[in-house]
């Protein structure tokens, strides 16, 4: 095979001249991390709320929560991204839409991507939270109410602390997914890790170096997330507690 390896390519000044190709990669890496973490924050907060609402007695609230889950879980991620990026600014009140369109393109891409990934993932987090709550013994809720807690207090002090411990493992895989899914955002021009990898190939014709590096970067993210979540799991482990609901 006539491929000529050249790892030195990363130290060459980039085509635009103001950076090295390594710098490009780092930019993409930081973009992927920033995007995924901010989307994860939205997914976690909103997903927890929606997951809780799916389990409350009020039919209206649980119905709304179910609609949220079905909507964001069943439309393909790519379609959702296009909706947020191309369609939503047209639907916003004129002032807001114009402000959005006049902002820096990177800002537009980032915000659309963050909201899109956050909401998409929130539906999946909500399902995990709901099943976590439902797998607790039903007597726990009764015991909490019986001692005088209001329903919100029952969730806050009794149901959620246990449910979150149960859902740490499935949430780990959602957390990993959000990093992988963030690559979709290159389709609206966001220069995250995968997009920078492709750009590098276009400019340097060194596809192996580029994609090996991109792959390793994703592997690194995976490893860090997995260790992080294991640490969380160990931190919240309860002495003497075996298994989930009985």
């Amino acid at each position, binding site marked *: 095979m006539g491929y000529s390896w050249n790892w030195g390519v990363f130290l060459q000044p980039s085509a635009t001249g103001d950076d090295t190709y390594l710098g490009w990669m780092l930019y993409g890496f930081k973009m992927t991390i920033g995007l995924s973490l901010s989307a994860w924050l939205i997914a976690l907060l909103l997903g927890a709320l929606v997951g809780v609402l799916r389990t409350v007695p009020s039919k209206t609230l649980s119905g709304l929560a179910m609609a949220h889950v079905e909507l964001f879980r069943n439309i393909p991620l790519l379609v959702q991204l296009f909706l947020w990026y191309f369609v939503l600014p047209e639907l916003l009140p004129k002032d807001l839409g114009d402000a959005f369109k006049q902002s820096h393109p990177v800002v537009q891409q980032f915000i659309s991507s963050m909201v899109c990934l956050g909401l998409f993932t929130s539906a999946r987090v909500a399902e995990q939270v709901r099943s976590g709550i439902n797998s607790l013994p039903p007597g726990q809720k009764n015991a909490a109410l019986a001692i005088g807690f209001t329903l919100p207090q029952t969730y806050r*002090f009794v149901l959620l*602390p246990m449910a979150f411990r149960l859902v740490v493992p499935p949430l780990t895989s959602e957390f990993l997914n959000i990093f992988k899914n963030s690559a979709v955002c290159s389709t609206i021009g966001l220069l995250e890790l995968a997009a920078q990898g492709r750009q590098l190939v276009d400019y340097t014709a060194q596809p192996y170096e580029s994609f090996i590096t991109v792959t390793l970067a994703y592997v690194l993210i995976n490893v860090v997330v997995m260790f992080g979540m294991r640490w969380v799991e160990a931190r*919240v482990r309860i002495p003497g507690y075996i298994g989930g609901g009985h």
Partner: protein
Amino acid sequence: MITMNKVSKHYGSFQVLADCTTHVNKGEVVVVCGPSGSGKSTLIKCVNGLEPFQSGEITVNGVSVGDPQTNLSKLRAHVGMVFQNFELFPHMSIAQNLTIAQIKVLGRDKAEAEVKGMQLLDRVGLRAQALKYPGQLSGGQQQRVAIARALAMDPICMLFDEPTSALDPEMINEVLDVMTELAQEGMTMMCVTHEMGFAKRVAHRVVFMDHGRIVEDDHKDAFFANPSSERAQQFLAKILQH
């Protein structure tokens, strides 16, 4: 203290409770028994509003449980309840299990709640376990903690739903002893239990249920000497064989 007047409840067409009328006076201990599925748990959960009911009236200390205006959380804070499966909060230490509701519901400060919690742990003989977690205690110990947790709220009455039926035989007595002591101190108690020895020793009255109805509601001596219904006779014959 507790009155029930013609309380009925159904799931769809299935009648779980039918015209149940009974009462528990202050300082009285009433044992509720009956075959499985007869509605005992449902009845006792109606008392603190954990189960809604469709008709009839229940009052606790003069407050109507079924009235939508009633602040149920406030009412429940002073009605202790003990469950078959203990239902301690597994992610909290024993000490926290005893203090959290005192702090969050009654608004006591932490130090005061802790003192109260330790006194009650002492009383059920478990002071040494304060820093452990529920999963580290035996069933009998967990149930004693659950009783202490309810007592920490200074309840005006206590509800028990088969507090010993999930326990290994050798642990039943340690829980019954705590309950007996409580009764002797004059606590108002409504206990669903099949422990007829406990009923004979401690109860004032026995309520017997079958198919959602209160079939007997007698002084305990009358109940054990000659139950008026055939159903209760059969039930007693069966249960006293063991």
